[in-house]
């Protein structure tokens, strides 16, 4: 490319400045997502934990560094777990199994619950029929139903996944129905007067108008799903992080229990962060789901 040498020199000089400014903006973007108070909170938690280990014996409360060391040791292969004949005898393998179940249950449960919730919000007859069923299912503590699922589906993946799926489905049903009830009718009326067909109203008004609340419901359901899945595995399963906790509890291996729970907690937090970030992109128009406000 030919050009005035002075202009080219200006461009050459300007380019690094522009690159620096983009890098600076990226740094600012990343730093704005990391809450310094959150980091202080984490350090405080670890500090208190460390402090408590002075007074509490390590057989009851292992030190943070010991748990970290245990996670590092057991992450890819856990010798202790092989004694129990556990397949995928590692924290990673067990966590992957649990995560798969949670993802399957949350995905299917969310779609089923959200679709049913939206349908019942717009069709009175469907609501009259489905509402009592879902609300009854919602009032029964879901863990009470765990033994039935174990009898029906055995100790495999199905029973734990079904348990979580039902919880997620009921949660999303209520969120989606409430979101559709709260959607201002003026949007549907405006669409109708502009010539929108009923199908277009569902696609262009009902779904986008309720998406922020539904996605909020998915995050809440996801947060609960990890705990439920772990408990379901603990009650009766051959694999998963819940099973690992059960085995370590049987061996009175407190350090192992802490390691498994910490891995579960970190994975749940990471999933929530990734989900929140994806949802913020899906509903970019909505202030509520955007991290850090508008």
């Amino acid at each position: 490319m030919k050009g005035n040498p002075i202009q080219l020199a200006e461009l050459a000089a300007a380019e690094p400045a522009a690159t620096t400014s983009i890098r600076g903006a990226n740094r600012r973007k990343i730093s704005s997502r990391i809450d310094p108070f959150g980091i202080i909170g984490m350090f405080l938690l670890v500090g208190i934990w460390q402090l408590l280990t002075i007074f509490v014996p390590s057989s009851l409360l292992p030190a943070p560094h010991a748990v970290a060391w245990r996670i590092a040791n057991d992450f890819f292969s856990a010798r202790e777990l092989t004694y129990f004949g556990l397949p995928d005898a590692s924290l990673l393998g067990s966590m992957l199994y649990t995560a798969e179940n949670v993802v399957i249950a949350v995905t299917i449960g969310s779609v089923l619950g959200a679709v049913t919730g939206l349908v019942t919000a717009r069709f009175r007859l469907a609501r009259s029929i489905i509402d009592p069923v879902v609300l009854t299912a919602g009032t029964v503590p879901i863990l009470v139903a765990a033994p039935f699922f174990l009898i029906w589906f055995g100790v495999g993946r199905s029973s734990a996944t079904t348990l979580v799926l039902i919880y997620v489905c009921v949660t999303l049903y209520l969120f989606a129905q409430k979101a559709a009830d709260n959607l201002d009718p003026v949007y549907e009326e405006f669409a109708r007067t502009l010539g929108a067909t009923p199908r277009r109203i569902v696609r262009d008004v009902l779904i986008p108008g309720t998406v922020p609340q539904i996605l909020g419901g998915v995050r809440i359901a996801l947060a609960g799903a990890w705990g439920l899945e772990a408990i379901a595995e603990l009650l009766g399963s051959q694999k998963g992080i819940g099973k690992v906790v059960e085995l370590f509890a049987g061996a009175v291996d407190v350090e192992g229990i802490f390691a498994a729970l910490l891995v579960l907690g970190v994975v749940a937090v990471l999933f929530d962060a990734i989900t929140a970030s994806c949802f913020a992109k899906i509903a970019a128009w909505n202030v509520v789901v955007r991290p850090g406000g508008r």
Partner: protein
Amino acid sequence: MLPEPVASPMIVLTGVSRIFRRADGQLVRAVTDITFEIPQGQFVCLVGPSGCGKSTLLQMIAGLLLPSNGSIRVADSFVTEPSPERGVVFQKDSVFPWMRVVDNVEYGLKCRGMAKGERRTIARDYLTLVGLSHVEDAWPRELSSGMLKRVAVAAVFANGASVLLLDEPFGSLDYVTKRQLHDVLLRLWAQSDGENRRTVLFVTHDVDEALTLADRILVLHSGRLVDDLGIGVPRPRTADSLLMEEMMQRKHELLAHLGLEGAPAPAARREEMT
């Protein structure tokens, strides 16, 4: 001064009534036996106190509500459901928050199956006409109330409706913004002449707003049509126009109908039926 509108009837109401059932089971007559015609191209304001049935009547003409009795015809077709031929600007913000400004303006055209390039050009033209070309890619939450009303007006005009129904669209806006939007609305309305001139029915309880905008003012009270006033003052009308003798006389008549001065308004309230 704008040319006189063509006088073929665009909106025809014959004996229109609407009865609602309240939560306690009582029947309330919101609109009673309304009959009038609006010629094509006329700008009509519907004035009356709160709760007199103005919005109910407008919703029936829009097809969002059906009359309990009587019939409504628009462009020789009976109104039974909403139609893109009858655009509505609502009192509440109706612009879709999940669509960018330009997508909102072209939405009606999209529903009609128009190609993307063509509808985008039309939407941009109308955004320019309402003075919002610089925010076409903005989200509605980034706009002020006045700008949102401009978007709604642009969306309805861009959709090519032959009848425009506006339900107290600028009621919540400050005086300056309201005056600016009057200018925008009249500019868009005056864009086309003769058979292409849109017919406008504008609901308001603001007497000055009605006098500034209307060719004709229909006065509603307790669900009944109580007066039909022609406004012959030439356009464009300014603040000084409102001080002209004819305007002052009309204003007094309207205020009297609203029960604020002079002759008392009809005493009848909404007729309650059991």
